[in-house]
């Protein structure tokens, strides 16, 4: 048993930390959120130059062949600074599916993702099916030599900037993963800001036509690839949550030491002290489950999916507790949009809602 990060992993962490310190203070972030794309193209270029976009991909596809550990290192640091660049959607979600598929052009698509030039978003959610993503109503039908896609997808991250979409659909009553182009006829995209300052889009498909080559996976293969993508995506946003929790309690400790009321720093009040201790404890417990899930995914342990559900439950509960306490202890400052602390609460709220919320994963863990 060894729970130390390697020197290489620690270097990666240092690099991300430094990048965020230099390029991602709260003012920088506000400007990024106000931009048209919703993230910084410059930052994304730097991610590419620093090799971060290559982290999880196999060497065959131009990647570094790193695994879940390195991804959690990246995301924990992203979480501390509330980074909004679409790493989750383009690299983790779409990258995982592409790399697991048999698409003839997958290497070139992945290479263009790694280079930072190309964005692919995965469309998995639909109205009226809740978190049972595989029960989708969007359908692929065969039409001579080609195929048609009809239906709609919801909450597609970074949709407005995506060059391609991977779409989870139903074909012959079985799941299918297909890839289409943003420019394809019959596809329309309506984009929104998300509650935590990212972007997402509603997609509508009217006879979007594609060839058999665009089918990434079918049936059980599609299901297992999709579930693999969910596991690793949940792990990444959980690591992000751990980072965000760490920042939340540390900023709160700092604030209460500086804020004076009744002629003393409010950190002197025992009730507030214990509240911060609770925040610290929840953060540490979440980190524990995050590391456990990381190592189980890394080693291909069949228990990993169950631990992922446990982790998502813990992230949901701890995120709520840490986020709410942080706001409460910041008082009026906590509910001001010009302070970073409320944005952590928003991110925790968003993370809990994604890929199955707390209650969904309690039920999943049980079953």
């Amino acid at each position, binding site marked *: 048993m060894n729970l130390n990060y390697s020197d290489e992993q620690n270097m990666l962490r240092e690099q991300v930390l430094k990048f965020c310190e230099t390029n991602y203070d709260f003012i920088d972030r506000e400007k990024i959120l106000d931009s048209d794309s919703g993230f910084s193209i410059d930052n994304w270029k730097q991610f590419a130059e620093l090799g971060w976009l290559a982290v999880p991909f196999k060497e065959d596809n131009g990647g570094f062949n790193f695994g879940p550990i390195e991804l959690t290192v990246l995301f924990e640091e992203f979480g501390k600074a509330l980074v909004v660049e679409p790493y989750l959607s383009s690299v983790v979600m779409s990258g995982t599916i592409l790399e697991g598929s048999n698409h003839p052009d997958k290497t070139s698509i992945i290479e263009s993702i790694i280079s930072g030039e190309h964005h692919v978003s995965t469309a998995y*959610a639909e109205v009226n099916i809740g978190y049972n993503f595989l029960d989708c109503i969007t359908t692929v039908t065969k039409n001579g030599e080609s195929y048609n896609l009809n239906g709609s997808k919801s*909450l597609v991250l970074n949709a407005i900037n995506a060059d391609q979409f991977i779409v989870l659909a139903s074909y012959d009553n079985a799941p299918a993963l297909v890839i289409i182009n943003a420019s394809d006829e019959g596809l329309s995209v309506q984009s929104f800001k998300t*509650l935590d300052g990212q972007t997402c889009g509603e997609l509508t498909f009217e006879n979007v036509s594609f060839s058999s080559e665009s089918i990434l996976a079918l049936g059980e293969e599609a299901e297992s690839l999709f579930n693999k993508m969910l596991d690793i995506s949940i792990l990444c946003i959980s690591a992000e949550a751990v980072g965000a929790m760490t920042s939340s309690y540390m900023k709160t400790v700092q604030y209460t030491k500086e804020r004076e009321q009744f002629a003393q720093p409010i950190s002197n009040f025992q009730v507030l002290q214990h509240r911060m201790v609770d925040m610290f404890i929840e953060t540490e417990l979440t980190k524990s489950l995050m590391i456990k899930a990381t190592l189980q995914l890394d080693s291909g342990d069949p228990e990993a999916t169950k631990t992922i559900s446990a982790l998502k439950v813990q992230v949901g509960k701890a995120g709520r507790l840490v986020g709410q306490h942080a706001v409460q202890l910041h008082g009026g400052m*906590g*509910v001001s949009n010009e302070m970073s602390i*409320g944005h952590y609460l928003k991110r925790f709220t968003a993370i809990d809602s994604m890929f199955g919320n707390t209650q969904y994963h309690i039920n999943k863990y049980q079953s």
Partner: protein
Amino acid sequence: MDISFSDQDLQFQEEIRAGLNGSEYPAHVREKRDKGIALSKQDMIDFHKFIHSKGWMGYNWPVEYGGTGWSPVQIYLFLNELALAQCPTILPFGVSMVGPVIYTFGNQEQKDRFLPDILEFNTWWCQGYSEPGSGSDLASLKTKAVLDGDHYIVNGSKTWTTLAQNADWIFCLVRTETTQKKQEGISFLLIDMNSPGIEVKPIITIDGDHEVNSVFFTDVKVPADQLIGEEGKGWTYAKFLLAHERFGIAGVPVVKVQLDKLKNITASYNDADLNRKITELEIDLAALEFTELRTLAAIAEGGHPGAESSILKIRGTEIQQRLTELFVEAAGQYILPYEGPEGFESNRTPAGPEYASSSVAQYLNYRKTSIYGGSNEIQKNIIAKAILGV
């Protein structure tokens, strides 16, 4: 003991209900509230003018100053009906806050000058208490007022000033003297928001809304006859105002209306766990509601519940916040698309089920309720000291 209201009270309740359902009620306000659309400044004025037209504006004032002279039970029923009819809240700053201070501590000239406009809603008031450095510790305020002939010169700043962007007047606690005890040397001053030297800067809250502001005072000249009562007695007046029975502080009827909405939404969900949480909330709400009635009964008997009303504040805000969490849980992933509110507690993004759009707005908006008006931690300190004696 008798749990029921008197026949007269029930008849009174019917009259209020009929009035609120009547044709005089501004239709555009009703429509916007039904659809969850934010009200404009003019909408709010129209609503208050309607309330005044019914003679209800001074619902908690004595007859002598143009009020209704209603009993505590009547006031309770009136506010209850307003909430059940999904009316906006009657803005407290004029009629519930500065008004009672003026008719209790002001001189005749001040009463004549300010009270009629409050009842007719010709003036929109806001509250100048909190300062950047003094939140829970209000007495440490620093905004200064120096007498210069027949004017005070005011310098300093106030913060978390609700709807200051709409206000015509502000009532302020200012420091007129620097003393040993920080509660002394504070005075209560009325200031015209159009005075030169006042600047209002919006504070955007985490739900993206603009409800509160910072107000900056730079050499603002305030006529000395706008001082209420005596110089240095401001703290006494402020305490009177805080202790003034805070009807409806528990927010029970609003929660009831919202809870019904939530139950309608989740009726088809068959989600045992969410249903359990809703039931537990409903039970807690029933306990809170009857606690409020106990307080009301005590007031009706001439009692002055002090620290007991802290229970209503603490548990009321806890329940309100839990309810917003259940809306978020019901909305699931559809809380994600969110472009900030159009105004009061409503998101302008239409993606996903209709109710989803306002759920996260309310969740974020309601975080403030355990912070403002004396944070829940302060309320517990008050109970510990005043009731438990520790």
